[in-house]
C-alpha cells in the first residue's frame, strides 16, 4: 500500500531557531491563482446578494401577511357594523311597536295611583 503526501513538510532544524518558536511549517499544496480568487470573490458577492434578496423578499412576505390580516380586520369590522345596524333596527321603536309581543298586549281596565 502506498500513499501520497499532500502536505509538504519543511524542516527548519537547519535554520537558526530559538526557544518557543515552531521548528516546522506546513504549506498547502493547493495553489489559488488570480482567476480562482476572482471567481471566489464573485461567488461570495453572489451569495451575499442572494442573502439580501432572501431577506428583502421575507419583508415583502410579511407585508402580504399584514395586508391579509388588515383585510380580515376590515371585513370583520364591517360585519360587526352590520350586526349593530341590525340590532338597532330590531330594537327600534317602530319594530317593537309592531312586534307580536306588543300586539298581544292589552290595555289595563283599572289603574289606581298609590300615594305614599
Amino acid at each position, binding site marked *: 500500500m502506498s500513499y501520497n503526501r499532500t502536505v509538504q513538510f519543511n524542516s527548519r532544524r537547519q535554520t537558526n531557531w530559538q526557544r518557543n518558536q515552531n521548528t516546522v511549517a506546513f504549506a498547502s499544496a493547493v495553489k489559488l491563482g488570480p482567476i480562482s480568487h476572482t471567481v471566489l470573490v464573485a461567488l461570495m458577492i453572489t451569495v451575499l446578494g442572494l442573502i439580501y434578496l432572501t431577506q428583502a423578499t421575507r419583508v415583502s412576505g410579511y407585508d402580504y401577511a399584514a*395586508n391579509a390580516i388588515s383585510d380580515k380586520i376590515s371585513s370583520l369590522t364591517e360585519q360587526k*357594523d*352590520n350586526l349593530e345596524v341590525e340590532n*338597532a333596527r330590531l330594537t327600534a321603536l317602530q319594530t317593537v311597536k309592531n312586534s307580536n309581543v306588543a300586539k298581544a298586549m292589552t290595555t289595563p281596565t283599572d289603574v289606581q*295611583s298609590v300615594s305614599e
Partner: protein
Amino acid sequence: MELHFSQGSRAKKIAVVTLAAVVIFIVRLFYIQVVQHEKYVAQADQEQVKQFTLHAKRGEIYAMDGSEPSRLVMNQTVYTVWADPTQVTDKNAVVSALNSIAGGNVRDNFAQYLDMTHSRYQVLASKVTMQQAEMLKKKRLAGIGFDAVSQRVYPEGQLASQVLGFVDANGEGKYGFEQANDAQLKGKDGLLKTVTDIRDVPLTVSDKNIRQPAVNGQNMVLTIDRNIQAETEQALADGVKKSGADHASAIVMDPQTGKVLAMANVPTYDPSQLNKVTDVAQLNNDIISAPYEPGSDIKTFTVAAGVDKGVITPASTYDNTGQITVDDITINNATKTAAVTGNITMQTALNWSLNTGMVTIAERLGDGNYITRQARDTMYNYFYNRFRLGKATGIELANEQKGVVVSPADVQGNAVRYSNMSFGQGMDVTMLQVASGFCSVINGGVYYSPTVINGTMSVDGVFSETKNARKTAGIVTPATSQVVREMVHEAHYATYNPHDGSDKYFVGGKTGTSQTIKNGKYVNDQTIGTYLGFGGATADNPRYVIMVEISDKDKSMGGGTDAKPVFNTISNWLINYLGLTPQK
C-alpha cells in the same frame, strides 16, 4: 500588471473597444444616476408609490332612550357594482348573477350597459350589501368590480329627520344637526403613501412610506328622547288629520336645563329616501327656521313683564269695553261676551285671552294711559333682551332664523306696534325662541339657551354628558315666575277642562290664534293655532314645556280647538312617561 500587445494586434483592438464600451457605460450611468437622478426617482415614485386616503368614519348620532343613549344615525358600508364592458367575457352570467343576488339594487335595464364598450366604467347596481357583494365576488365574474361606499342608515326610520338633516353624496352634512356639526361629525381623513406591488398591496420596502391615521368623527348624543319624539310625531300626525290642516310643529323642552326633548314637524321625510322628497320645504325644521307672528301665547310674556315690574297682579282690574284705542288704531277682543265685559281682573283677561288687557298692561308700563317710550323700552328690554325673542338662540342646528322684534328706537317701533306686540302680533319670532323664553318665565327666571347636544359617546360606548353652561339668571324674579305659573295654570283650565286626570298635576298653558297677512292685511280666515304650556307634579317644579303650532293655507286654525288637543295628548302622555306623582 503590464500588458504587452503587438502593434495593431487583434487583442489590442479588442481592449480598446472594450475600454471604450466601459467608458460609454460609465458616462451613461453617470448621466442617468447622477445628472438625471431626480427625474428617474420621480418616475419610479410615480409608478411604484401610491397614495391612498384613509377615510375617517363619520360620527354616529344617538338619541336618549330614557336615561340611556340609543342609536339614531349609523354608518353602513355598501357596495356599488360596476362593470368594465371591455373585460366582460360572459354577459349572460353577469346578468343572471346580478338579477338573482342583487335584483332589487340594479339599475333599470342594466344589461344594456354591458354593451357600452366605449366606456370602461358602468355602474350596474348600487347600495349592495356586504353579503350580496360577497356572493357576487364568489362568482368570479370577469370585468366586474366593487366600490365600497359608506352610507348613513336610520334604524328609527324617519324619526326626528328634520332635526337630524342628512349627508349628501359628497359626504357633506346638509340641514339640521348634520350640517351644523359637520366638522365634529366628519373627523379628518388620513393618508397612506406607500410603495405597492402590482395589486396595490402596500409594501414596507421604502423609506418614503407615510401613514397618517384617520381621525374618526365624534359620536354625539342628542337631548332628543326617542320615546317623547315618537309620541310627539304621532300626536302631531293625528292632530293634523283631525283638524284637516297640512302643517304642524311641536317642541318639547326641559325648562330646568334648556334641553330639547322633542322637535317635530308635519309633513316630514325619510332621510334614507331623499329621492322621494318632492318639496324641499320639507327638509326645513320650521321650529327654528320659520319665524311667524306668535299671537296670544305672548300674553304670558306681557303678563310676566307687568308682574315683574310691579304694575299688575292677577287681581288687578281694568275696565274692559271689548276694544281699546291706541293712536288712530282700535284694537278689538276676539271674545266679546258680557261675562268678561266691565271691570275685570288681569287673570280673567289672561283666561279669555283679551287683547285689551294686554294693551292695558303695556300702558301701565308707561304712564298708565299711553304706551310711552318708557313703556316700549321696558317691553323691548323684556321681550328682546331678557326673553330673547327676535334673537338667534344659537341652537346646534343649521338654518336657524332670528326673526324680527322692532326696537322702540326704530321709526316703526311706535305705540301701535307695541300695542300689537303685547298680544303677539307685529313681531316675527320662532317657536324655539318662544318656548325657550317661556321656560325662563316659569322656571324661576333662569334663561337656558336651548340645546340639542346632550354629550358624546366614546368608541367604547361610554356616554359623557355635557353640562349646559349657557344660562342667565334673573330674567324675572322667582316670585314673578311663581305668580305667572299660577296664572297660566288657571288659564289652562278656565276655558277647557280635560277631565282626563291631568288636573291632578300642575299643568298650565295658553292658547294662541294669530292672524296672518294676506294681500297686506291681517285676516281671520287664515289663522295659525298655537298652544304653549308646561306641566309638572307640583307648582314649584315644572318638568316640561310644550309648544304646538298647527296651520294651513286659507284655513282658520284655532289655538284652543286645534293646537290644545295635541298639547293635551303629549302632556298627558308625558305625565305617565316621567312618572309624575298625582297631587290631588
